[in-house]
């Protein structure tokens, strides 16, 4: 796979929900190519299909029709177990509400994806501690989420998204629950990741945050309205 090959390719992807008798087209034929090292922001008003697209990209949901190629392989028809495997091995998730597991410590939260990959305990621990230090939580390795500030929790989320060295990092409004100071901090970290060559797809509704990205995809009513590179 060369740098020119897309890391994510969507071909005429549709996602239709049935609501009783009516059909709701959350995505009505989306075709997009994302390339390695890109920092993409997906924007649009609520109800435009952002979340649906992110769920599809995150292999949490499957398209009703069309194809989704991740790293050159068609994942649109895979079974549940295989999708879990892909999520754990190839994708990193950063959520708006951090989504840390409350009963686990910082280190344990970071190593969850590795745990489901069957990585031995000491290797998990090693990688997890290393990442926690990298995001500046070296002093809080054994704290629980409720002992951390929002910014700190989101840094744990970022470390967790990085621990399995994913092909793509998917971020869903990563600063949505943070004050502006912590938000800026998190965005700076995302910029750093981009600088290190990570592929990031971020969903947001805030144009100011969208500006951090190098490519901006606007969605409206389930179709791509605009796709600009800067």
């Amino acid at each position: 796979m060369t740098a020119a090959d897309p890391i994510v390719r969507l071909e005429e992807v549709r996602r239709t929900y049935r609501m009783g008798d009516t059909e709701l087209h959350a995505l009505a034929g989306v075709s997009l190519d994302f390339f390695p090292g890109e920092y993409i922001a997906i924007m649009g008003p609520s109800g435009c299909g952002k979340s649906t697209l992110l769920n599809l990209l995150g292999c949490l949901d499957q398209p009703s029709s069309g194809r989704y190629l991740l790293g050159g392989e068609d994942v649109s028809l895979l079974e549940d177990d295989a999708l879990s495997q892909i999520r754990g091995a190839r994708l990193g998730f950063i959520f708006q509400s951090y989504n840390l597991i409350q009963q686990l410590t910082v280190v344990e939260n970071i190593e969850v994806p590795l745990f489901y990959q069957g990585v031995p305990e000491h290797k998990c621990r090693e990688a997890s501690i290393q990442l926690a230090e990298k995001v500046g939580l070296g002093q809080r390795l054994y704290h629980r989420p409720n002992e951390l500030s929002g910014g700190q929790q989101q840094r744990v989320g970022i470390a967790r998204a990085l621990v399995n060295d994913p092909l793509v990092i998917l971020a869903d409004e990563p600063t949505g629950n943070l004050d502006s100071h912590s938000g800026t901090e998190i965005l700076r970290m995302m910029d750093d990741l981009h600088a290190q060559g990570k592929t990031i797809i971020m969903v947001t509704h805030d144009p100011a945050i969208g500006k951090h990205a190098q490519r901006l995809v606007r969605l409206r009513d389930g179709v791509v309205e605009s796709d600009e590179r800067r």
Partner: protein
Amino acid sequence: MSAGNAWQSHAPVALSPARLRRIMMLGFKSLWMHRLRSGLTILGIVFGVCSVIAMLAVGEGASYEAQEQIRKLGSNNIILRSIKPINQDRPSQARQWVLEYGLTYLDLQKIRETIPGVTIVMPSRIVRDQVWNGVNRMDATIVGTVDWYPETRQLNLLQGRYFTPVEMEARSNVCVLTTKAVETLFPLSAPLGGKVRVGSDYYDVIGVIETESTGAAQSTGQGSGKAATAAPDIYIPLSAARHRFGEILVNRSSGSFEATRVELHEAYVRVDDQKDVEETALIIEEILKRDRRKTDFEIIVPLELLRQAERTKQIFNIVLGAIAAISLLVGGIGIMNIMLASVTERTREIGIRRALGARRRDIILQFLIETVILSGTGGLVGVAIGILIPVVITMFADMRTIVTPWAPILAFSISGMIGVVFGIYPALRAADMDPVQALRHE
């Protein structure tokens, strides 16, 4: 393009002991988050398991006690007892009237002579009278019997000796007291070498013997005569009893009086081979019935009683098993209830885990292990308490209890099984959640 076969070719995550240990640690952490709830849930299983063990121990002890009592009667023995015949109309005209019934010396002689394989025949006469030592008085059951009585009844002599054949022959006034009689008659002094008075006769105390337990025979023997079943207090030689008390016994009670003539109240027949016990009992019955118009005796076969006790024990065990099953079922339902609540409450966590790569089976395993931890912990605590309870019962209620080794093992493995059985449904519910919905759950 080969539809993503590369993903499936990933080696599936094997369930190694190390991995199982990590999942268990995870389970402990999640349960520890809700200590009170987990503790209360465990309590249901604890009660179930410990009541199973305690009930089995009490049941086992009671049946052992019953069997022990029957065994003391001797499984090779046949017990013959005189009983007052029913419908014995008292002729209203007769002024002097003596009720005559029961076993005779002749009967025993016949049994001994005609039936092969019968070695020891142990007759006894039972008289109720007052026994005195100075001012200490006791309404005692006096048994006139033979010198091999303790041996046949498997009674332990605690002090002194039993009477000898010579004393039997000589109708000596000697007696052996039970511990119960010693307590009443010799509360302060040593019984050996003392004398007790019955009527106008004095008897030398030559020995002390353990008190007989007649409970089992009493409860299972049908329609036994009054005198025949009271536990003996004093033993004297049969010859002496015959000589001192005569053949006719007068029983004065509540204004009326009743004279009975009974040669022997009780006799033990020992059969050499246990196989022949039941058959011999039938033959004896035939022989005794031949000379009688009315049935004035009963035959008790301890071996039969023993079998009966075993059957009773089986039924007892089935009933206990059912109660145990129900109590554990209730505990199991409690666990399922809590786990269902827990699954709903942790929907978000399930979504997170699924997003981070957990397969359905990982979620199933996680919740199943949590349930098994709950029921297993309950089982362990229950076993510990369940073993303790019988000890306490024995200490305070003076009841024999026996904890058989399989009872805790059985109870514990059932509790473990309950964890699996009642854990499966909540675990499946957890695993079948749509990750997208689960992540959105508040």
